[in-house]
């Protein structure tokens, strides 16, 4: 009896979370299968009355979607790796090593997040033009990594803080160097933290629009968000077409999330306290 009630709650909770998260995605999916005419029907339809794949065909015809996808992937992956490595080092230093003015440094790191990207665009454009990095992968990887730096550092900082100092102390007593302690003790235990930071950096980069538009507008360098906005006309907004492109853009992120979330779970099974 008790187990039945328990199971029911699980199902309810699962449905709630699922519905909340997926209804716009599902709406986009349905819209991508409709024609524009159906969008002005009253009462509105949910499931497409005459489903069609024409929008997907057009989406691939009118723009090099696979290329945009590749660009987004390279930039996001590069930004994630760069961001997480740099953040892990910085977070560890702030959390564990005796650093002067740790609080002030933390504040400075986070200060970057206090500027809306739009205010940074003009000087960034100038810097990256001078460096010759316009329309290059590196020219987007660097700013994207930097944009996620504050949140990644803070997430990893609070994670490192939750790992008991005794574990490292024990390793140090056993003759490990600081670097060794970091590698053999701390990193394995911070699975959830590292993968959370990585996921944050990845999705931030995947979705980023303004810098991608400004620093890499060339046709073969565009990322997905930039490319998708180009389906618009000056006044024209073709919802079904854009929805199809959005589905194409969202599916890989969904896959990445599905994969990463397993790793966040796996981090737990390392046994945080067993010591």
């Amino acid at each position, binding site marked *: 009896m008790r187990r039945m009630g328990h199971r029911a709650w*699980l199902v309810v909770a699962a449905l709630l*979370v699922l519905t*909340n998260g997926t209804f716009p995605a599902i709406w986009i999916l349905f819209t991508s299968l409709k024609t524009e005419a159906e969008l002005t029907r009253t009462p509105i339809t949910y499931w497409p009355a005459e489903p069609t794949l024409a929008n997907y065909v057009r989406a691939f015809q009118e723009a090099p979607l696979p290329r945009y996808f590749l660009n987004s992937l390279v930039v996001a992956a590069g930004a994630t790796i760069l961001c997480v490595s740099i953040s892990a080092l910085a977070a560890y230093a702030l959390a564990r090593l005796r650093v002067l003015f740790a609080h002030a440094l933390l504040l400075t790191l986070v200060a970057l997040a206090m*500027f809306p990207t739009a205010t940074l665009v003009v000087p*960034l454009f100038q810097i990256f033009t001078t460096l010759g990095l316009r329309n290059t992968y590196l020219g987007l990887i660097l700013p994207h990594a930097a944009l996620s730096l504050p949140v990644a550092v803070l997430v990893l900082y609070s994670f490192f803080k939750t790992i008991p100092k005794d574990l490292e102390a024990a390793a140090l007593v056993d003759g490990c160097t600081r670097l060794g302690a970091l590698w053999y003790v701390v990193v394995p235990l911070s699975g959830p*933290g590292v993968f959370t930071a990585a996921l944050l950096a990845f999705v931030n980069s995947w979705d980023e629009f303004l810098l991608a538009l400004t620093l890499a507008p060339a046709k073969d360098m565009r990322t997905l968000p930039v490319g998708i906005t180009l389906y618009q006309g000056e006044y024209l907004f073709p919802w079904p077409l854009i929805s199809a492109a959005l589905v194409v853009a*969202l599916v890989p992120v969904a896959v990445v999330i599905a994969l990463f979330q397993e790793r966040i779970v796996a981090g737990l099974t390392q046994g945080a306290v067993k010591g």
Partner: protein
Amino acid sequence: MRRPWDLSERALAFFFLVPAFLLLSLVAVYPAAHLFLTSFRELHLALGTQGAFVGLANYRQLLEDARFWNALRVTLEIVLVTVPGATLFGLALALMANLPYGIKWPVRLGLLLPWAMPLVFAGLIFRWFFESDFGIVNDVLRRLGQGPLFWLTDPILAFWAVALSIVWKTSSFVALVLLAGLQSIPREYYEAARVDGAGALQIFWRITLPLLKPALLVALIFRTLTALQTFDIPYAMTGGGPGHATETLAMFIRTQSVENLNLGYGSAAAMTLFALSMAVTSLYLRHLQATEGE
């Protein structure tokens, strides 16, 4: 034996911090300095002014600008509504996502998908949802027998439509951070508490919440910072309308800088946003450092 240890630890700390600060110098420090300096100049390209130094003139003008104060007010209202809103909703989502399911990935996916949608499009999608003729919100209302509401053109409804959309979109970021925090609470703690006879609510208050504090603070910091910078969703949904009812500080800054080409003035407004963000983050961070004293 202590001295060499100290030195090498300091050196190590230095090397660990250098890459981060190097990257930041490139991407943040220079632009921020540029912004700071421009805020003291008269640089209004539409008037052809060339950037003469004018001290605090831009700031003084801001203080007298009713539109600036309106934008500030709208922004603070959004912060006061969407930060607690997204945090509570995100917490609820994270707790629900943390239940022991047989198959975990569908729920976790549903949790994080809202966050995966590019902000640029999220705003447009919500505009469509709240449209008075063809949006699903009014469709549902119609089916329930209620008349259609003008979500996007009534000043109060527009604010709530925007706030609701923001809460929905950002709650999954909060949920992600909190979920990771929840996952790092060892299950042994819960078991021990249950053995001691604690009820679910007690477990939540005494064990979960305190151990979640660091993650909660991280989520709060970034949720607040992005709330202060709210731009994309109101821009796409209402353009700041009706009138100026949903015009945020970030929209005000963009209008001044990019549309009106009044770069000095826009920079001054951006610096006020920065000062506000700095103050708020300082408070949070102090709290974060304090909680580790245990």
